[in-house]
């Protein structure tokens, strides 16, 4: 193992080290604050490590991990997301939960899994990463189950996620096995040559394998018709975990999916493209339509995330006919934008909630603008961004989706995108409208009037600044993504 490999692995090593340290400290000294600070510091250190030490790119570090700008970008996002979740988790759990320390160990292993996923070009690391992420998440979702008074129904949510996610993992594993049986390789990049060499391109086994993998991925990404678990899990999980689920786990899965499809040249199979197109259209329609019916903000975000994943799938489908660079660039931008705005939105919900009582009905937000203008402003910015209104990152993201779609001549999907966005506006505006209305009744303990911890405030400020900065002056970000796409 050369030093180059060690340097590139530094991020992963730091994450692993933090996991171990947190575990040991939690074992000897149960103190929520200390564990939280250790976790956040470890995450911050691994986030910043490549600012100080230049990684060697691109590099195949062991058979399982591959480091290039693309994977580093997504690991960066993932670790940033985990850091935010760790910051939000402290005030959320502190007031009502007794034993909070293990949560951070789970958070670290989940993050580690997500990073492995983003760096994988091999089916083994793909599966290992996915399972590390998934298994940690089951426990994270169910975490408040022993609290005196859990705000939601964490056990139900965790069980649903466990069964659905387990099924998806099984599907993916079977799909991998089928592909391996045909080609004898587990490297994404060796698939296409092997298929050609063995002359099995039209084999039904190959297609079955691919469809199983895509189906499993669709479960994890909650694409219609594999989306059923999403709203229940989003609602039942504690807010910081919902935030993690909505951002980190989705981003990691997307990163590896696009790489898998591009590298293994899967776009040549018409059947696969058809399946993807149907899923994209159905996700945009159903996600947006069902979001209309929700009175719970977390459920609404769940359906809206289904729709947003549909938009992202448009970019991935466009990669079949446009130069791969543009779709890598578009997807990375959209994921980053979606990442930031979702974190902002969940940070607002989290600031108003704790593990004993969550404020997640639309009615709860009535008059927020007059009760707490700061939280309301963040929420409104985030919602406008999710709706894709200019001045926000969401708009540039949507612009990228449109650009990819037009270049790929995906007229049907673009029509669905416009209809979906129109419906989407309605439910985002409903929340904004509620926020702007006069205060209905002021309860004695208005959660909006309590002081917001410094960490949460910082998260709110950073996400809002990023949402607006990326919307007004996206050029620096675009330059990063261009170089990332060029080296893909």
């Amino acid at each position, binding site marked *: 193992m050369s030093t180059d490999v060690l340097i590139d692995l530094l991020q992963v090593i730091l994450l692993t080290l933090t996991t171990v340290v947190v575990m040991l400290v939690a074992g000897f000294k149960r103190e929520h604050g200390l564990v939280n600070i250790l976790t956040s510091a470890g995450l911050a250190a691994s986030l910043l490590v490549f600012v100080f030490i230049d990684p060697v790119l691109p590099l195949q570090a062991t058979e399982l991990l591959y480091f290039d700008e693309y994977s580093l970008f997504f690991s960066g996002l993932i670790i940033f997301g985990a850091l935010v979740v760790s910051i939000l988790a402290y005030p959320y759990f502190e007031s009502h939960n007794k034993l909070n320390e293990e949560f951070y160990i789970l958070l670290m292993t989940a993050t580690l899994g997500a990073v492995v996923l983003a760096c994988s070009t091999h089916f083994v690391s793909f599966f290992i990463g996915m399972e590390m992420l998934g298994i940690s998440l089951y426990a994270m979702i169910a975490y408040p189950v022993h609290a005196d008074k859990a705000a939601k129904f964490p056990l139900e949510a965790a069980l649903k996620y466990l069964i659905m996610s387990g099924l998806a993992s099984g599907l993916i594993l079977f799909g991998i096995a089928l592909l391996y049986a045909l080609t004898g390789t587990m490297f994404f990049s060796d698939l296409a040559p092997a298929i050609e060499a063995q002359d099995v391109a039209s084999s039904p086994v190959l297609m079955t394998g691919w469809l199983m993998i895509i189906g499993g991925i669709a479960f994890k990404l909650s694409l219609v018709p594999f989306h059923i678990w999403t709203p229940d899990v989003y609602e039942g999980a504690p807010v910081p975990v919902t935030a993690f689920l909505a951002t980190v786990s989705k981003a990691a899965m997307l990163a590896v999916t696009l790489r898998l499809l591009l590298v293994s040249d899967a776009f040549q199979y018409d059947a696969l493209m058809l399946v993807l197109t149907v899923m994209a259209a159905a996700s945009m329609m159903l996600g947006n339509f069902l979001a209309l019916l929700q009175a719970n903000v977390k459920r609404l975000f769940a359906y809206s995330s289904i729709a947003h994943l549909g938009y992202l799938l448009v970019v991935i489908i466009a990669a079949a006919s446009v130069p791969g660079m543009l779709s890598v660039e578009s997807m990375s931008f959209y994921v980053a934008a979606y990442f930031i705005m979702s974190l902002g939105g969940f940070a607002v919900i989290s600031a108003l909630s704790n593990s004993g009582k969550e404020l997640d009905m639309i009615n709860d937000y009535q008059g927020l603008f007059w009760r707490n203008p700061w939280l309301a402003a963040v929420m409104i910015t985030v919602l406008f961004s999710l709706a894709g209104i200019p001045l926000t990152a969401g708009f540039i993201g949507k612009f990228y989706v449109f650009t990819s779609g037009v270049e790929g001549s995906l007229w049907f999907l673009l029509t669905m995108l416009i209809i979906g966005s129109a419906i989407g506006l*309605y439910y985002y505006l409903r929340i904004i409208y509620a926020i702007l209305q006069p205060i209905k009744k002021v309860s004695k303990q208005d959660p909006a009037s309590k002081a917001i911890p410094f960490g949460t405030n910082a998260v709110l400020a950073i996400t809002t600044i990023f949402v607006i900065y990326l919307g007004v002056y996206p050029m620096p970000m675009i330059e990063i993504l261009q170089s990332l796409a060029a080296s893909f």
Partner: protein
Amino acid sequence: MILVWLMLILFVGGIAAWLSESRGSDVPRVIALVAILLDLALVILMLVAPEILGLTSIDNGHGEWLVLFEADWIPRFGISFIFGVDGLSLLLIGLTVFLGVISIGSAWHEIKERSGFFYFNLLWTLAGVIGVFTALDLFLFFFFWEVMLIPMYFIIAIWGHENKEYAAMKFFIFTQVSGLIMLLSILVLVFFNYQTNGVLTFSYFELLGNGLAGEIGMLVMLGFFIAFATKLPAVPIHNWLPDAHSQAPTAGSVILAGILLKTGAYGLIRFTVPLFPEPSQVFTPIAMTLGVVSILYTAKVAFAQTDLKRLIAYTSVSHMGFVLLGVYSWNAQALQGAIMTMLAHGFSAAALFMLAGGLQHRIHTRDMDKMGGLWSVAPKMSFMALFFTVAAVGMPGLGNFIGEFLVLLGSFQVSVTTTAFAALGLVVAAVYSLIVIQKVFHGENTNNYEIEDLTFIEMACFALMMIGLLWMGLYPQTMLDMAEPTLRSLGVAFP
């Protein structure tokens, strides 16, 4: 740079007004007024003595520009900041800033709650509109097109009347969705240009003469048309407007009717027709028919209203039908007429909405069946109502007459039948307008209203608009001369 100042003063003024709310509810309106008056002063300087501001006209091969500002924004996609002001833009900026003053006047006594945030939204809407009238990069244009919506949405959603949620939502969704269709069209146009000329650019100047024709050209043109026709608005995509207007607070209605509708007409003149000459040619009969249908149908609907603000809203659609007719006739008279109608309607509609708002503020209803006999109680108000109603109908000597007359003169050269039907609109207009005067101001004061007559601020606003309309009616040459170079550069033949 002067344009940046125009917008910056409004942006900063808006923020200052918002922050100043805690210092008393009267402070924000003063700050807003100061900001808008500063802008007005700048615009007047641009109109009267541009050399003081160091402005000289630049000819870039696409017309003469008093101000032309270019800078990179997102070079990745060939998107840049291109702002330009020519005669047409300057006229409309003048209208925007002037009506901005009027709208602050109309909000002066009406908006008591959360006034800081109100004036913030008001000023930001105006800044967005100035952006729309000056942006010459299609992406930048789209950006402002959408940005001006948000503060307007807030104005309707927070300070609106009883059915504001529905109205605000409808307003936002109609404009946003039609905007997305336009975005799609812009992208198709840009990528078509990229494929034929090898340059990825959103610049208006470089996209002129793109040669997009045939079926795709038609579809792309329609994308632009739908967005602008929604804002104009034209039948059958007009029905967001009566709701938005009737539910908005007075200042909101003034801005909506006076300025926001004009962005649609401006888009048609500046973008739709020049970018797609051939498809527009093919589309002309349909567009002109839509114009006539708008004129007659909404005039009929207006007659059936009992809600005063809804009635005025429908008449707006009717008058905007003349603009549509004029734009698609695409000759010197018709276009001059369309521009005159835009300006004159901006004044008359703003004044009428201000009157309706003033009435609602005083008697808490917009239902005309509950009004009557107000002439004896509020003579000044009644006189103003009569004056602006008559102006809207098209009384010779006032601006609206010049506009509609020129439109009919121009469209007569294109289609006699269409013009004949459009001219009927003038007759119907007289009917629905006189019914307003009759129901509201004449007859018996059955409810024994005793209302305060117009205040000094209101009188001042109305007087200013009167002078404007009289100027346009008696010496329209001032405006026509300003619009002419723009129209020439767009390829309109002048006799």
